């Protein structure tokens, strides 16, 4: 039985010819059924592009897939016709996005939008009763009334719950959450994450959670993949990665996470900035910012190696 999601050596470019910018350079990920995978990295590292690629949501052009495969239940979405792709979108794979306010169409009532995935993927369940059930499932009070609200009448947290309800409507096997809490304030963030964790257990689905905040990873993830400059630099079980990060970039990320109840001075920031797509350094892409850089790091591009069982790292000096 193939894994629910398997990305193999995915290479993606924006633009064509000499102006082509490689945003993803050999990304490989595996997500088993019922598991949660966290994709972590700074802005611009390619994590959102990876997430959007799974249901082919990037406009092509300008995006162009130049290599690799994306297998959902063993079928390559890069080679799918429109019909099969639309069954994947919303059917097998549900999405929630960063800005719930912008992801809901402002001119339609909540109910008018929530009914869409039901009509498409579960026509028999396209009823008001089912919509109410969905809103209840994501913890929205007075769901009957909320169905008649316009998105702007709801708070940010409620809007994100509506988005989650919409993503769950077709009972997807995989929920892709692209920074679902970034635009929300901290208490709401915690509620939404709690809701996701709870839904995962109740519905037995897999979650691909994209975040730039390592702090939330420990609460929810089974496995973690850390991305930097269009590549996966470390991939390991969550507890192991949090206990003993191997890649210098992961270590630096962890030092920049504030922790409650621990007395500390200034938070550490990673020196330098994320290299722009198309201007990646030679050799190891992290070497200009790496605190433990070695002379050969700028020469040879390191491969992703299995450092320990089920733990992969893209750094020969991980020990």
């Amino acid at each position, binding site marked *: 039985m193939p894994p629910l999601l398997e990305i193999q050596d995915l290479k993606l470019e924006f633009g064509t010819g000499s102006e082509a910018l490689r945003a993803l350079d050999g990304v490989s990920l595996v997500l088993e059924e019922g598991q949660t995978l966290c994709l972590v990295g700074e802005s611009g590292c390619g994590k959102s592009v990876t997430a*959007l690629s799974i*249901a082919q*949501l990037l406009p092509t052009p300008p995006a162009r897939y130049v290599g690799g495969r994306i297998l959902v239940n063993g079928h390559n979405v890069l080679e799918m016709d*429109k019909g099969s792709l*639309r*069954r*994947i*979108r*919303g*059917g097998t794979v*549900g*999405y929630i*996005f960063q*800005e719930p306010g*912008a*992801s*809901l*169409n*402002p*001119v*339609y009532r909540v109910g008018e939008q929530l009914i*869409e*995935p039901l009509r*498409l*993927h579960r026509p028999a369940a396209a009823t008001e009763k089912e919509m109410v059930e969905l809103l209840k499932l994501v913890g929205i009070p007075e769901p009957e009334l909320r169905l008649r609200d*316009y998105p*702007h*009448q709801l708070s940010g947290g409620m809007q994100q719950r509506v*988005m989650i309800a*919409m993503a769950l409507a*077709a009972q997807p096997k995989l929920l892709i959450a692209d920074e679902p809490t970034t635009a929300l304030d901290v208490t709401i963030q915690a509620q939404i994450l709690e809701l996701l964790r709870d839904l995962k257990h109740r519905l037995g689905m897999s979650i691909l959670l994209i975040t730039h905040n390592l702090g939330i990873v420990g609460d929810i993830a089974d496995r973690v993949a850390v991305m930097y400059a269009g590549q996966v630099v470390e991939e390991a079980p969550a507890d192991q990665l949090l206990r003993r990060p191997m890649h210098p970039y992961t270590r630096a990320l962890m030092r920049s996470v504030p922790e409650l109840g621990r007395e500390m001075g200034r938070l550490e920031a990673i020196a330098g900035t994320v290299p722009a797509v198309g201007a990646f350094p030679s050799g190891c892409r992290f070497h200009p910012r790496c605190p433990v850089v070695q002379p050969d790091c700028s020469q040879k591009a390191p491969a992703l190696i299995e450092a320990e069982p089920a733990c992969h790292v893209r750094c020969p000096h991980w020990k």
Partner: protein
Amino acid sequence: MWTYLFQRLLHMIPILIGVSLLTFLLMSLTPGDYYSKLENNPQITKEKLTQLRAKAHLDRPWYVRYGYWMKDALRGDLGYSLEYKIPVSELIVMRLWNTFVLALAALLIAWLVALPLGIWAAVRKDSWVDRGCAMIAFLGLSIPEILLGLMALLFAYASGWFPVSGVESNRYIGVEDWDAARVLNRLHHLTLPALVLAASSLAGIMRQMRSNLLDTLRADYVTAARARGLSEGWVVGKHALRNAINPLLTIFGYSLAGLLSGAFIIENIFSWPGLGRLTLEALTSQDYRLVVATVVMATGLLMVGNFIADLLLAWSDPRIRLRE
């Protein structure tokens, strides 16, 4: 809501007063008056001229003249036209129908062509369709209406396919009866002026439609709609287009004003007896009561059009409608 509507209508009154006042002032600043052209006529005595001017209040300062005009206007009497010797209101009503037919035809052509082309160009961005539309828009925006009108006139004359002036053939002058042949004759006369008038607004509407739709096609809720598995037709038709029309509603409101105020240039080129031509004639002959009436009416229509646009916008966008 109702108080707001009432307030909006109330706000129109001072604007109309201001516009009429300004028109009187500007008319008084132009050299001469309606009767100046009679000064060299040996059959008209000086006394007669003085008498005529006194009757039209042209011997008094402009603000006194305005006062006389306002007093009558408040009772609904816009006075007699100096040129046509009939009430201004009657004159306007006579011309209104011609202007309305021409403007409505042009409006329909412009919107019915521009909207689909704009949508098509946006959905097929950078294709030959898009390039072709950009070319049409470029021509439409850069060729002056007057030149296009004259070219159409030349075409009508050279080909002999279209009449060059008027709303109908001379044989219908004084005829009261209507039959199918007369309607066709009118449509035949209408074709060229309506097309030329439509061409000038078509380009702008088309480009606006295209850029609005391109904006909304990039919106997050469009990506989210695709992520739910909706077909591209649904995504564009239901989610993107509905949000892209809002700025066009404002343009539509403004264009409603043109329905009843006339098109100066086109009506003159095609000798179309509409309000635009009437206004221009009134201006050149300094028939001040007619000028003020047409200017005030055009202003009023522009404001009503704007008001309708706001109502449409509120109807279309719940964020505006439900604002406290």
